[in-house]
């Protein structure tokens, strides 16, 4: 791989890792279900960007675009279902507090 594209990959990778850290921290620390889902979204976005970058530096833009489109579709469905579950939980508990979600344990 040429040094230039490797350099650009590293630049993007640097920031993508930072975004990963943001999302993971959000997932681990938050106490609100919706915010947890938002954290998940951030992670997925970082991954999509990573795939596009990889496509760019390897010259396989068409392939990665196709993949990313599929990923986005899947991501939307997952998000909708997660949102639906959150909504249902809210109906039951009247809160989105994650601490309430530990009835199954042991």
């Amino acid at each position, binding site marked *: *791989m040429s*040094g230039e594209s*490797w350099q650009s990959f*590293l*630049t*993007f*990778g*640097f*920031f993508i890792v*930072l*975004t990963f*850290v*943001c*999302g993971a*921290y*959000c997932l681990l*620390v*938050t106490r*609100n279900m*919706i*915010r947890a889902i*938002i954290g998940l*979204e*951030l992670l997925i*976005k970082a991954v*999509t*960007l990573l795939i596009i*970058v990889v*496509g*760019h530096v*390897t*010259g*396989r*833009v*068409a*392939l*990665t*675009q*196709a*993949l*990313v*489109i*599929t990923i*986005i*579709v899947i*991501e*939307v*469905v997952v*998000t*909708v*279902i997660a*949102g*639906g*579950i*959150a*909504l249902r939980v*809210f109906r*039951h508990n009247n*809160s*989105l507090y994650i601490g309430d979600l530990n009835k199954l344990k042991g």
Partner: protein
Amino acid sequence: MTIPHISIDTILLFTMVAAALWTVMGRSLLKATIGLAITSAIISILMFRLNSPLAAVFELSVCTGLITVVFVSTISLTKPLTHKEIVELSKERHKRFGYLPIIIIVTAIVLTLIKIRNNVAVAPGADITADVRQVMWNIRHLDMFGQILIIIAGALGVVILFEERKRDEW
């Protein structure tokens, strides 16, 4: 890693991380959603710059548009917090999320120290200049079937999860 060069890309990326940070640390859920939308928009600009216009359009329309709508509607369906609660929560939140910027800075420093050798050799591919639609329809049409299935599953999920039952269960 070496310290990245300053360019439009770098600025955009920096804004992206800032937006992500704001998303996570934002006080209310609505602000977080807006932050997510901004992050998403920046990512789609980056995709344009990386010669991936179709993915960028998709990202812009679906993620910035559709998902934001989903979140906003979910949030509006759940009970809004009172002002007092928000104030109390935000105090606590500062404690919990205050560490995030520090962690990010530390990660950044660690990353600049790591050296990754460039010994990834990519075999020259045939589809470098191929068109996206061609790739999607000719090579990756299995993915299209997958998408159809996932959308059906999602539709069923929406029907099941959002449907109100007559008798209220515990």
